[in-house]
């Protein structure tokens, strides 16, 4: 998983920012930035967590912030794995923790750590 896929490389070439070494909630990412999902927590709400997972927000997925709304920069439009665009509100976006795109593989270990280490 640590290698970028071809579409991801193209997105990077197209001008995506990589915030090297920075880990932040999706809701805080600047427009145009690209990263890889480290953890999806749902912030304690299993339904939010499942909702996010069902819409493609999963550990290891590549994510790009495309647009923000006018008022309060809410909601966000994000591209997942360069294949699907999803709109979500900042509240839910903050339940998704994003790291640099070129970060090491996100394996089972970090998934199981998620419960003890909420974002």
């Amino acid at each position: 998983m640590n290698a970028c896929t071809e579409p991801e490389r193209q997105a990077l070439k197209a001008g995506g920012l990589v915030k090297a070494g920075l880990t932040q909630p999706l809701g805080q990412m600047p427009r145009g930035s690209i990263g890889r999902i480290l953890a999806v927590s749902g912030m304690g709400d299993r339904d939010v967590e499942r909702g996010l997972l069902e819409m493609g927000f999963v550990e290891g997925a590549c994510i790009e912030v495309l647009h923000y709304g006018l008022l309060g920069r809410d909601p966000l439009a994000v591209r997942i794995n360069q294949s699907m665009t999803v709109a979500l509100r900042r509240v839910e976006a903050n339940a998704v923790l994003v790291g640099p795109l070129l970060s090491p593989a996100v394996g089972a270990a970090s998934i199981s750590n998620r419960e003890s280490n909420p974002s």
Partner: protein
Amino acid sequence: MTGGILNADNARMIQIALVGPPNSGKTTLFNTLTGGRQKTANYPGVTVERKSGRLRTPVGHMVEILDLPGSYSLRARSPDEAITRDVVLGRQAQEGLPDAIVCVTDATNLGQHLRLLLELRQLGRPLILALNMMDIAQKRGCQISLETLSRQLGIPVVTTVAMRKNGVRDLLGEIDMLLNQAPTTAGIVAAAAWEEPSPDAIRAYHQEVERLLKEAVIQEAAPERLTRELDRVVLHPVAGPLILLGILFLMFQAVFSWAATPMDWIDGGMASLQQWFSAHMDDSLLKSLLIDGIIAGVGGVVIFLPQILILFLFILLLEDFGYMTRAAFLMDRLMSGVGLNGRAFIPLLSSFACAIPGIMATRAIAHPLDRLTTILIAPLMTCSARLPVYVLLIAAFIPNATVWGGIGLQGLVMFGLYATGIVGALIAAGVLRLTLLRGGRQPLLMELPSYKWPNPANVLLGLLDRAKIFIRRIGTIILSVLVVLWFLSTFPAPPAGATEPAIYHSFAGMIGRGLEPLLAPIGFNWQIAIALVPGLAAREVAVAALGTVYALSGDEGAVTEALATTLAHDWTLATALALLAWYVFAPQCLATLAAARRETNSWRWPIFMFVYLMVLAYVAAFITYRVALALGGG
């Protein structure tokens, strides 16, 4: 084919369910498979539409295809998705377990769409995977090994191009193959044991999809550029809302200008129908019922069909194009400010034509409180039935002058009435969400699909559906209400030598005169009170009723014209403005209340809707009347 599914149960037709995520092109595939041989009905208890159609396979089997609402997973979040889950699990009343399931996926978005297939596979039912929109995927350089995918999944995999008639050939062939296989009973146990996947189970599905695609995908599709570029403008924080406003403006412009001609035809047709009956029938109660009750009443409602169809043409085109979710994105922040969801934008937009399809469209809203709030405020959107009343009063009381350099005053007042309804709806939603309907907010989480050219067949079939629903409503609810109203305003007959119009002495007149003291504080005279009695059932009937009260006759156009003169003479400006304010809020539509009852499955909410809108109407009319009087409008 002995022992095949075909012989499993001769009592009913073989049934195949189409299941797929939203935006997988499932409905287009359904339309291509079944053509015009479709039937829309309702599931019992809920009003989710049951869309089915028939097709004959190449071998010659007749099969019923069931188009189930789009869903990302079997863990249903909205009433629509619950139907999909219940049907594939065999839990839906009056619906057997489907004999086979076709899972429709977007070939360009398999990474997200295959999870649903994995969920379905667990049920152990005969299953076919259709990789839809394969033509687009190939254009973008995508190569998938169908054999590998089929082997890995253990089910048949076909590619389909739903837009083309021969694009479903492989699918039909696979269906025939499946029908000849021995039926399986394994799924019945699996379906009964189904439970909602945990978050980690969904993660496992993700990993499985990734593994499958790594095996089967030879060449990934290049990212879609056009949608990205278009969104740069359409979702731009400043340009986006401006474009939305422009589209809405164009839409309403079209609704009013394009619809004028067909509305004149309907008007003329109804008038000549009335003339024909009055020339060829002897004076009798039946004649009166036919002409004054049924033709006038039905004509008064049918006349809105062109406007409703034009509005829906726009909505369906924009939806098929992929714009509607963008509109929801742009509106979400504004609407979340009053506790609503951006998704509520589409039902509310439909409500400008008619609140009934608007209320029905709320089924796509997942959260019950969000949905209920949207249903309760939908009648505040200015539906086309209010227009005849607005047009009449504005023509009679608002001078045809221009203000602020070129803006017509009459048009401005009309705009003000629309705006009052919208603002009223937003405030009502905010108050409801802070009081009665306080509770958890639903996350937005909405896919913004790739733009594509609208499919004419989809749009046409959708439009036909809307027209059918509207006409069926006229044939049932409205017709029976009209007969009752005719009875109320015809009996008892006036005493000999009465000087007042006949309706004054009728039951409707009695009710109206009884209501007069209650309505006097808001400036309504007994004529208005009487007209509001039939107007309670359907708003637009009030114009005809006013015509009757003021003893005018002729076709609708002539009545409106003569009425405007009479009213300008008989009413004060304050009264006219108060009646306009009343019309913005008053719940004068039995069909809307009936729709709300069906959708909420109780009388509680429609009664609440009626009461709160009545109170709003009374207060608004009272304030308008008093303020207008104080400013010299008496």
